[in-house]
């Protein structure tokens, strides 16, 4: 897929083929990040379902979820919705 066409160089009208959202790594906008503690997870998939970026993924059978830092904006919805409080939000700043 020529996802880079219209991305590295602009086109007239800033037209681009699909895939631009994959190329633009928007995770840099984040000021807080989720920490998946992998402690009390019950595999309910709430974190995966509510993520507006679709960047939380994992395996409910293994009760193990994590996030993709390339796209996570740090909104904290996963942490807020987790019924067993197994996700913390921490500041990105060092």
């Amino acid at each position, binding site marked *: 897929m020529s996802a880079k066409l219209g*991305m590295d160089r602009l086109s*007239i*009208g*800033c*037209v681009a*083929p699909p895939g631009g959202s994959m190329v633009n790594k928007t995770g840099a906008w984040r000021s807080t990040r989720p920490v998946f503690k992998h402690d009390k997870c019950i595999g309910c998939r709430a974190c995966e379902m509510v993520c507006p970026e679709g960047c939380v993924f994992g395996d409910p059978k293994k009760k193990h979820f994590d996030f993709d830092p390339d796209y996570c904006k740090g909104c904290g919805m996963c942490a807020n919705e987790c019924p067993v409080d197994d996700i913390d939000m921490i500041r990105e700043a060092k």
Partner: protein
Amino acid sequence: MGRQAILEGAMAVAHAVARCRPEVIAAYPITPQTHISEELSTIVADGELDAEFVKVESEFGAASVVLGASAAGARAYTATSSQGLMLMAEVLWNMAGMRLPVVLACANRSVSAPLSIWCDHQDAESIRDCGVIQLYAEDAQEACDQHVIAFRVAEDRRVLLPVMVNLDGFLLTHVFEPVELPDQELTDAFLGKYEALYKLDVDNPMSFGCFTEPDKCMEGRWMIHDAALRSLGVIEEVSRDFARIFGRSAGGLLEEYKSKDAETVLVAKGSICGTIKDVVDELREKGQKAGLVRVKTFRPFPRQALLAALKGAKHIAVVEKGGSFGSGGIMTPEIKDALYDAGLRIPVSGFCVQLGGREVPTDGIREIIDRATKGEQVAYEYFRLRKEILPDLVPSK
């Protein structure tokens, strides 16, 4: 000379647009534009034009439909006025940025509040910075012909920007004038078929006006500026071609009316220029060297052409049907800007007239010319403001 008919301005425009064969039309009724879209819907319903007429719930919807249609590769058209144009504003910025050659008409009308349905230019001028090319007609014939020119300029690969044809609400939309509609065969040959540079296609999907990080957005904006500036030459070229093929002049950047040797030159756009020309003629008969430079293309601003047309003047008065609250005129400072860069210190006055349809009779134009000729210079004046009807401007309790 072809066949002339006595037509209402808006209806003449509708028939001229139909001869440009737009494939998608979407519009929402608003006075004084309504007759354009109403007549177009009739033309489509009668099977005289093979187009999709999309009924929408608002001007935001109308603009969005023609944006989408244009992105899908169709020649698309809409028309509006005043508040309708305000509602379209966001979409117009997108059209320009996505470089979609939509053509629209603005039947110029005052923007609320106070509520007024009559003509001034504040609706169109308030979206002057969005990248949409703006042409202004003096009469119904020119409004028709500028639409034909508009489609060709918009679709030119050197431009690819929306073009808005402005015609004064009521003063042009609702008057009956002799009009020669653009001949169908000539129009077909003049415009050809629209071939989009990129188009929405399920087999080859594309996103338009994509997200840009700060490292690219500025270049995306610059391309709009660059295309708008380049369109100055294209407008002149297409207008010359129109005059050659149709045998009458319509487009171009400016009209210089008895201004070449004039000492006092007025600058204006739209239908008021008819009145100004009458006064210029009258003063010329008395030996007074007055003239008019009529702005036909307001965006992009024809800076060099204006400079060339105005550099010999002793006094300049800009007759504006609008302005920027808290600043002043719209064209007045832009003309001063062009003169300043050329090292010219010709006195320029700005007169705000005809807001909300206030009539300016010939004696008003004479007064403006007289005051400018006497050397009076005003930055921006609400001409003949009726101070006697104003309330206490800083109300005490």
